[in-house]
C-alpha cells in the first residue's frame, strides 16, 4: 500500500470505523472527521513535495494491481500535472468542510462518515488511471451526494436529491457506454487509461469515434454541467446543506471537467478535433448564459450555482479550443488548457468558500433571498469582508486565482480562435451580478433579517478564510501551481495533435 493508495483510502477506512462504532459520541465523531481530513491533507502535501513531473504519457506514484482481468481492467492509480492540483484542492475543501461542520447538530456521526466516504471517492476518481476504476468512483460520488442532499438538506430536498441522482446517473451510464466503446475499439482490448491514451483507438473511424465521443461527452457535460444539461444544479444546490454545496460545486463538478482533459481529449483526439467546434460553442453558450441567468437570480445560492455554470463554461471553452488544431497555435492552446486546469482548482476554492458563506446566511436567517437582507456590513463586518473578497475573487479580480485561470483561458482561446473573444463579456456580467449582490445584501441601511445577525463564528472563519487565502496565494504566486500543470497541459495538446 503505497502513499497514493493511503491518501485515497485513509478516509474510507475512517468512515467505516465511524459507521461501525455505534456508541461514539457526537463531538468525537466531528473531531475525528477534522483529524482524518487534516492528516489526509498532510499526506497530500507530502505527495506534492515528493512529486516530480513524469515524462509525458506516464504517471507519478503509479501503482497497478489486477482487478478484473477478464476485461483487462486493473486497479491502476497515479498522478500527473492534471490530477495532482485537483487532489490537493479536494483535500483542502474537505478539511474546510470538516471544520465548518464542527457545530453540526443533525446526526454528525453519519455526516462525518458520509463525507469521509465521499472524500475517498473523489480522491480516487482524480487518481484513477483505469476507466472502470474511474467510473466506479464517478458513480459512488453520485450515490454519496444523493444521501448528503436527502439526509442533511432542507427545502424540497427529497425531490432535488432524486433529480440530481437520476440526472447524473443517466450521465454516468452514458459515460460507461462510451468507455465500453473505447474498450471494444482498442486493440488489444483494455480499459487502461495510459494504454488507451498512448494508442488511441477509433483513429480514422469518424462515425464510431463520433458516437463514442458523444456518449462520453454527454456523461461529462451533465456532470460539469454545461447548458442545457445543468438544470439539476440549481435545485440540488439550493436544497443541499452548506458543506454539501461546497463539496458539490467545489469537487464534484470538477469530475466532469477533469474527464475532458483526462479521458476524452487524449483517447479520442481525432473525434475531438472534429467536434471541437461544437464543444467550444457549448462552452461559450454556458459562459454567457450562465452569467445572464445568474444575474437574474435573487436567491444567493441559486446565483452562485449559476455562476458555477459560467465558470465551468470557461473550462469547456478551453477544452474545445484546444481541439481547434491550427498551424502554430499549439503554445496558445497549451496556455488555454493550463488555464482550464487552474480554473478547476480556483473555482473549487472560491465557490466552495462562497457556498459556505451562503450557508451562514441560511444558518442565521433561514433564507437565501437577497431582498431579506440589507446593510449586513454593519452587524456582521467579518462576514461582509469575506463575502466581498469571495465575490471579487469569483469575478476574476487579479491577485486571486480566478484571474490567473481566466487570463490564461482568454489569451489562449483568443489567440487560437479569435471568435471566442466574445466570452470576455462574461466577466463584465459576472462583475455586475456580484456587485449587485454585494450592494443588496451588505450595503445600505441595516434592515430585514440583517438585524441581529450574528457575525462569523470561529469555525466558519477558519473554514472560509483559508480557502480564500489559498486563492489569493495562487493569484499572487501562481508559479508553484503552474509549474505542475503546464507540462501536462502541453502534453494533452500534443496528444490532440495525433
Amino acid at each position: 500500500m503505497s502513499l497514493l493508495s493511503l491518501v485515497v483510502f485513509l478516509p474510507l477506512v475512517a468512515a467505516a470505523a465511524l459507521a461501525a462504532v455505534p456508541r461514539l459520541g457526537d463531538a468525537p465523531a466531528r473531531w475525528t472527521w477534522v483529524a482524518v481530513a487534516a492528516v489526509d491533507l498532510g499526506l497530500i502535501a507530502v505527495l506534492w513535495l515528493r512529486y516530480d513531473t513524469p515524462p509525458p504519457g506516464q504517471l507519478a506514484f503509479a501503482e497497478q494491481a489486477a482487478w478484473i482481468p477478464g476485461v483487462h481492467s486493473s486497479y491502476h492509480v497515479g498522478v500527473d500535472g492534471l490530477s495532482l492540483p485537483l487532489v490537493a484542492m479536494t483535500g483542502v475543501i474537505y478539511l474546510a468542510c470538516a471544520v465548518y461542520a464542527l457545530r453540526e447538530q443533525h446526526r454528525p456521526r453519519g455526516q462525518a462518515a458520509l463525507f469521509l466516504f465521499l472524500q475517498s471517492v473523489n480522491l480516487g476518481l482524480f487518481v484513477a488511471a483505469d476507466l472502470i476504476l474511474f467510473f466506479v468512483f464517478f458513480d459512488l460520488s453520485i450515490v454519496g451526494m444523493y444521501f448528503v442532499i436527502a439526509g442533511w438538506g432542507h427545502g424540497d430536498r427529497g425531490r432535488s436529491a432524486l433529480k440530481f441522482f437520476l440526472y447524473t446517473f443517466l450521465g454516468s451510464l452514458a459515460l460507461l457506454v462510451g468507455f465500453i466503446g473505447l474498450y471494444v475499439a482498442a486493440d488489444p482490448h483494455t480499459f487502461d487509461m495510459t494504454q488507451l491514451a498512448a494508442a488511441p483507438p477509433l483513429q480514422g473511424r469518424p462515425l464510431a469515434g463520433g458516437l463514442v465521443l458523444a456518449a462520453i461527452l454527454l456523461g461529462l457535460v451533465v456532470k460539469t454541467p454545461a447548458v442545457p444539461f445543468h438544470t439539476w444544479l440549481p435545485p440540488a444546490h439550493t436544497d443541499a446543506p452548506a458543506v454539501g454545496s461546497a463539496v458539490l460545486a467545489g469537487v464534484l463538478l470538477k469530475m466532469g471537467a477533469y474527464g475532458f482533459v483526462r479521458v476524452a481529449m487524449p483517447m479520442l483526439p481525432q473525434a475531438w478535433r472534429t467536434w471541437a467546434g461544437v464543444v467550444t460553442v457549448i462552452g461559450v453558450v454556458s459562459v454567457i448564459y450562465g452569467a445572464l441567468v445568474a444575474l437574474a437570480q435573487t436567491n444567493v445560492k441559486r446565483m452562485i450555482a449559476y455562476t458555477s455554470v459560467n465558470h465551468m463554461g470557461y473550462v469547456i471553452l478551453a477544452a474545445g479550443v484546444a481541439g481547434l488544431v491550427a498551424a502554430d497555435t499549439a503554445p496558445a492552446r497549451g496556455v488555454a488548457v493550463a488555464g482550464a486546469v487552474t480554473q478547476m482548482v480556483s473555482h473549487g476554492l472560491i465557490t466552495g468558500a462562497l457556498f459556505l458563506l451562503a450557508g451562514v446566511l441560511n444558518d442565521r436567517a433561514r433564507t437565501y433571498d437577497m431582498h431579506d437582507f440589507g446593510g449586513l456590513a454593519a452587524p456582521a463586518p467579518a462576514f461582509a469582508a469575506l463575502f466581498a473578497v469571495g465575490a471579487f475573487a469569483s469575478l476574476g479580480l487579479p491577485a486571486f486565482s480566478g484571474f490567473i485561470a481566466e487570463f490564461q483561458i482568454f489569451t489562449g482561446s483568443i489567440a487560437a480562435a479569435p471568435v471566442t473573444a466574445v466570452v470576455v463579456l462574461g466577466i463584465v456580467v459576472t462583475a455586475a451580478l456580484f456587485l449587485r449582490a454585494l450592494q443588496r445584501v451588505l450595503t445600505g441601511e441595516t434592515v430585514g433579517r440583517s438585524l441581529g445577525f450574528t457575525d462569523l463564528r470561529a469555525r466558519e472563519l477558519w473554514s472560509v478564510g483559508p480557502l480564500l487565502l489559498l486563492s489569493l496565494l495562487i493569484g499572487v504566486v501562481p508559479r508553484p501551481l503552474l509549474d505542475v500543470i503546464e507540462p501536462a497541459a502541453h502534453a494533452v495538446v500534443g496528444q490532440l495533435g495525433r
Partner: protein
Amino acid sequence: MRPLLLLPELLLAAGALTALIGGSFLPRQRQWPVRIFTVVVLVATIVATIVAAALPLRAPATTAFADSYAIDTATGVARILAASGTLLVLAVAADEIAGSARESETYALLLFATTGAVLLAGANDLLVLAVGFLLTSIPLYALIGLARTPGSAEATMKAYLAGVLFGVLLLLGVTVLSGLTGGTTYVELTDRLAGAPRAAVTVAAVAVISGLMFKAGGVPGHFWVPDAAEAANATAATFLTTVPKIGALVAIYRLASVLPASSSWPALVAALAVASMTLGNLAAYWQPDPRRLLGWSTVSQVGFLLVPVVAAGRSGLALPSLLGYLTGYTVTNIAAFAVSAALPRRRNLADWRGLGTGRPWLAAALLVALLGLVGTPPTAVFVGKLTTATAAWDAGYAWLAVVVFVNTVISLFYYLRWIAAAFRGHRQAPPGIGEVAPPNEGRPWSARLAVVAAALSLVVGLASGLVWSVVARP
C-alpha cells in the same frame, strides 16, 4: 457412462429423499436435524463439485451418459451457485418455517428443485432438458402453495397452468428438433441441424427457448413471477426467483450455441431480453408491495441476463460474463429478498420509513442490495452488467448495450423509491409495528442473511478478478 461424474446431482437427489423420509419420523418442533442434514448435503455438493473440478485426472470439459450431460465450467459454476443459493435460502427458512408441519418436506422439495436446476444447466440432450424442466417446475408448485393463503393458492394455480402450457411448448420444440435430426443429444443436433428446413428449426427454437423462459421468468413466461413473489412465503419467493433461473439461463445458453444462426435465434433472444428488461422495469415502477416489486425486478434482471446469451459464439466474453452475472445476481437478489423477509409485516413501501435509524445494518444491506441490482459499482452486478454489455458490444450488438443502460436508468427510479422510504425520517406506522417493534417483528436469521449476502455481493464485486478466474476456465 461414468455415473460418478454426476456425484453432485446424485448427492442432491439422494439427500432430498433422505430428508423426506427422515423428516417423517421427527416430532414437529424438532425437525432441525433435517435442516442440518440439508445444509450438509448442500455443502457436500459444493465440495464435490470443487474437488471434481480440481481433479487433474480428466480433461477440463467432458460429457457423461453418452453425451447427454455436459460436465464443464458452466455446469460446475451452476452446481456451486444453485447449491449455495439454496444454502442461503435455508437461512430464511430457518426463521419462517421452523417447526411448521411441512418443514421436512420443504427441505426435500428445495433439494429436488435444486437438482432440477443443476440438471437443466448441465443438460446436453433435449430429453434431459425436458426432464430437468419437469424436475424444477413440480417442486416449485408445491413450494408456492406451502403458505396456505388464498393468495398463494392462486399463485400456485397460475404458476402451474403457465408451467404446463410452456412445458407443452418445450416438448413441442423438442419433438420437432429430434424429428428433424433423428437425434436428441446436442452433438447430433449441431451436426444435423445445419441442413434442416429453416422454418421448422425456427419454430422449434422459439418453442424451446420460450419454454425455458418460463423457468427463467422472462417474457413471455413471466406472468407467474410477480404473483408468486408476492403471495408465496419468503422462502419460496427467494428460492424460485433465484435458483431455477441459474439452470434455465445456462440451458438457454447451451441450446442457443447449438442452434444454427439461420434460425435467427440471436434476434429472438435479443428481442426477449429487451422485452423482459423493459417490461419488468416499467411494471415495477409503481408497485407498493416490496416483494412484488422485487418480483418484477427479477423479470428485468432476466432481461439483462439474456444479453450475454445473444453474444454466444460471437464473443469470448459471453459465457464468463453470463456466469459472472449469475453469481452476482444470486447473492444480490437473495440479499434483497432476505431484507424483505426479515421484516415480513412491512408489505408496503411506506412501512419502511425509519429503517435507516431503527435497523441501520438491515438498512445498509437493503441499500447495497438495491443499488447492487441497479448495477452501481463496485457491487457484483455492476461487474456483471459491465461484462455482459461489453460482450454484447463485442459481438456487434452495441445497441443492446445501450438499451441495457437506458433500462438501468429506468430501473433506478423504483429502487430509489424503496431506498428513499427506508432512509426517510422516522416512521409513522400503525401501532404494533411501530419503531419499538415487538421482538418477533424482526426475523434474526433473515436479517443476518441479508447482511451477509449484501456483504458477499460487495466482496464478489471487489474480488471479481478471483471470480473471473473461476468462470473463465476453459
